[in-house]
């Protein structure tokens, strides 16, 4: 079985990620409610080794990894890759020029 740590920790981190993803009304989002309901449903069990609980924990950890890495990937993309090409006005401004103004359009 994969080394996952405690389910409480995974649940807390997952809910935090969902909060980042959803924004203001994160508590009403279907994902938040589904995750909480799933964790509550699998909590009460008399068995010591509950396969369904471990499956759920693994799925939660996988989803947490997905949300976290998407967020980090987007942040890295924004910082290093998102700029795109400069407009002609910005290029001219780099060397201190301004584009000519032709009120009548190009001749």
């Amino acid at each position, binding site marked *: *079985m*994969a*080394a*996952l740590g405690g389910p409480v920790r995974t649940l807390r981190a997952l809910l935090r990620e*969902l909060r980042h*993803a*959803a*924004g203001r009304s994160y508590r009403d*989002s*279907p*994902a938040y409610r*589904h995750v909480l309901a*799933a964790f509550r*449903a699998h909590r009460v*069990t*008399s068995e010591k080794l509950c396969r*369904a609980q*471990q*499956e759920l924990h*693994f*799925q939660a*950890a*996988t*989803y947490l*990894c*997905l949300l976290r*890495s*998407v967020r*980090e*990937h*987007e942040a*890295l*993309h924004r*910082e*290093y*890759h998102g700029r*795109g*090409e400069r*407009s*002609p*006005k910005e290029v001219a401004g780099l060397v201190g020029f301004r*584009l000519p*103004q*032709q009120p009548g*359009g*190009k001749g």
Partner: protein
Amino acid sequence: MSSVAMWRGCRRLWWAHSPPARLPRPPPAAAGSCPVGPCGRRAYAPPAERKRFYQSVSISQGEGGFEINLDHRKLKTPQAKLFTVPSEALAIAVATEWDSQKDTIKFYTMHLTTLCNTALDNPTQRNKTQLIRAAVKFLETDTVCYRVEEPPALAELQKNEWDPVVSWAEKRYNVTIGSSTSILGPNIPASTKETFVSHLASYNMWALQGIEFVITQLKSLILSMSLIDRHITVEKAVLLSRLEEEYQIRRWGNVEWAHDYDLCELRARTAAGTLFVHLCSESSTVKHKLLQD
């Protein structure tokens, strides 16, 4: 015709229900000094991103499964089929992806949506046998079977990290795989391939698309199977897949805009693929146990 205009045409196909977005033309005064395509846009500018055009995302249950609603419009695949998924948890995850887009829609972050679209449309038009064959073919060039002889530190690292996974796979599936340092790779016996073929045949078409996706990302059949069998976590699988890179990073240093970028993207895709496989191949029932005092 410029590729930009063709690409915009494809985009129009995607959103069958919403009106085509008109991109603003740049002012003609500035157009003199740069190459301008037939649509009036600069030839090398990235295509303008689609703005978020919906307020709320919700899920509804239809006949084929669960559907996603953007405001009141139903989501469709790129080939204009209705977007239906068999599992509610998967629908919720896709809806969360759509809901988490702010201002502009970044399709490259929506991995689960992409996987569902691929499963629904099947653009490469492969049937189950072809998918399984493509997946098992990776075994001949599996990452964890290719070992180096030098530098000795890397060879040692590969032995310590990859050997346990290979022996786990051999024990779990009752096959011989082995590893090799030659350029031709390990000699995989036909019985091993047949075992994997018959094992993969037990998954449905959607799960198989996910499995093949994970194998393509990790470049390893063995790592993908150990991930899907919940033997290792996603982070560990990605680490094992990138073992040599991690070794070089530890030796020569980390470049954030390349190494971390690739790492996050690989983790995101692998996690999406694994989650997709698990959600497509499970059926959960809740059995309430009677309280016995």
